């Protein structure tokens, strides 16, 4: 990408005038190509892992490890599909970077995955999701009497799964597999 970013050098004023539309065209093309290239790269797990910060275990256990992240990898779902990076979030992150505050990018907060993100693919709504696990009967965790819970309380993205139900009472013998 580096060589593409070198705009052609104009030497003679006369030629320059003639070439101006071409130069602008080239610059636009370069920006577009670089933009698409950057965008594609930006979509890769390697981007998150190398460009801005160390991702601790998040990238490695996306490949393999505890948590549902690696299942998503197998299904071809990448980091930013779930950790949705809206512009204001990214700008806030860049601000922290520029301020040298790289230890505290607030990643857990900024890239928090809330239920709507999970439900978008899994069921569409909490009620529909509950129907898909109906055969768990009285202990269907998605239709529990305490109400909707955060998906990631049990289904940890990058950590050991948590069986929240059994933290207080029996759960009908269910186990978390992933």
């Amino acid at each position, binding site marked *: 990408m580096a060589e593409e970013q070198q705009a052609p050098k104009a030497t003679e004023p006369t030629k320059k005038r003639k070439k101006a539309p071409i130069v602008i065209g080239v610059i636009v093309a370069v920006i577009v190509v670089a933009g698409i290239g950057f965008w594609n790269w930006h979509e890769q797990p390697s981007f998150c892992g190398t460009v801005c910060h160390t991702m601790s275990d998040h990238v490695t256990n996306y490949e393999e490890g505890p948590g*549902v992240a690696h299942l998503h990898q197998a299904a071809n779902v990448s980091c930013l599909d779930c950790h949705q990076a809206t512009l204001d979030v990214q700008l806030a992150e860049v601000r922290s970077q520029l301020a040298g505050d790289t230890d505290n990018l607030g990643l857990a907060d900024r890239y928090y995955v809330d239920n709507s993100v999970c439900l978008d*693919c899994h069921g569409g709504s909490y009620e529909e999701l509950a129907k898909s*696990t109906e055969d768990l009967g009285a202990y269907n965790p998605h239709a529990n009497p*305490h109400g909707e819970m955060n998906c990631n309380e049990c289904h940890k993205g990058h950590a050991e799964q948590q069986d929240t139900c059994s933290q207080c009472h029996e759960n009908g013998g269910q*186990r978390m*597999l992933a």
Partner: protein
Amino acid sequence: MSEDQSRLEPTRRGFLKAAGVAALSAAAATGAFGLTGCGKAEAKEEALVANNAGVGKFSESVYTDVFPFETRGIPVLKKETGVLRRGNVAYVANDIPESEIKRTEETDVLVCGVGLTGSCAALSASDDGTTRVLALEKMDVGRGMFEGMGVVGGTKMTEAGNIVDPAEMMDRMRAAADYRLPIDPIKLWADRSGEAADWMQEKFDEGDGQIETYYKTGNPTAHHFDVPQTEISFRSPQWSEKTTKNAGGGGMMIVKDFANTLNKRSNVDLRFNTPVCKLERNADGRVTGAIAKDADGYFRVNAAKGVILAMGGFESNPAMLEAWCRTEDIEHCSSWAPNSGGTGDGELMGIEIGAQMDPLPAAIMNFDFGYPEGFYPASSGLRPLLGGPMINQDGVRYAAEDLPFQARSNATNAQWHRGEKCWRLGSSTQVNALAPEAQQLLKDNLPAYVEKGYAVEADTLAELADKMGCDASTLEATVARFNGFIDSGHDDDFYRQNLAKATKIEGDHFYALRNQSCILATVSGLVVDYYCHVLDYDNKPIEGLYAAGGNSGGFFAGEYPRHVFGPSVGRCVTFGYVSGQHAAKGE
């Protein structure tokens, strides 16, 4: 993940792919964590409650910036809380543009939050059959986590012959707060909780849950925390043993029954999945209503008579726990309530318009018997080992085991690294005393805890010490000393009062279980007067604004005094009932 993974296979794929920067910023425009990932335009819906914690728009500094005065920081150790349960904050710090407010609704009384307190407030405000009540709950179910309530007087207490002097009870509550309390809230509870308990029974009679209140005698004292009996408990022939055995199970059924009764009343409109986001005040300072949000977006509610804040505390908002609580109260602890609605919305909304918040650090309700993931469930069968001596990281006993819950939590958090590695000791003596099924249950469940490092077992104390990471001779000396106290009948170190109930740590097998603090609720909130009006910082009532239950304040300081039975739920019911009565009359 369930046994059959295929059931959870994605049903809809449509992720945003390589769509370019324009799409990225368009996505940003729909809100920080709005549902922007789906390519299909028609499927683009915004998350009902955006989780904006930590994002530029809603920085954590809101927890200090919200106060209407200059604040100062006391340099305290900064540590993350062990509470991982995180709900979505609904409070909106910025102004909500008029263009985003889709409609306006009119009511007499707006009840914000429909857990136990909000249910009581909505019932009480609508008791006259004419006052229009709009009750809005953020989650799909209101929180109902409790087994009993603490009251002074009332029919059931009186019939059972348990007569408590209200003056004595007020003194006990104030003493529990080291007298750091205004007058009214404790007085309101002592004067009217008995009446509120009677009223609550009437509401049960109106409902379909066949719920009955009854007086229950507890242990006469815990350690030297001598207090009168205050417990009113609940029962219903409809409840299974599971409901009654699980702490909080009955509460869930009560809140459900109240929702059912509210739905039957023609002057009540109860809605779920509808968070309240911001209070509105007119030029005279009167609270006129609030802005709430549902699937259609923001809407304005004008409440002609009053707004009741019943949104509980902030036990499901880790960032707020870190901002408002003592580090040692929140670091090595877990959450013990499967509800994520309590994110401090009610406190923040009130403070924003000038309400007086209890002084910080906030008081929390904490119990020990916790481990890093939660509270040791009764179903684990491990509880018999949790009554044993309390041992710290060095293998030294650190507190009397008959202390009330909050005192045990506090003593634990005063050990190394604020309670990072404290234990309860057990031995074959305690296990052999159990019925065969109970022994089996314990044996079946222990390995999972051992695997995670929460429990260790060994045939000798020396080996146990090794696994605990402490000095063997220290642990042996600690155990010998503890056993000696049981023989002599006097605890020279911690003055335990019920040594007669203690059993020795001896036999051919030994256990140590990690023991730490658990947070059930936060109990500091907005200071109210005798009528549940929210006060400003000059102690003047804010017109049109009431608060009750966990959202209200002036009742606890420092911590929740668990040696008194159930003052928290006693406050929820009494203040819910009283605030509803006053709001309905607009006085």
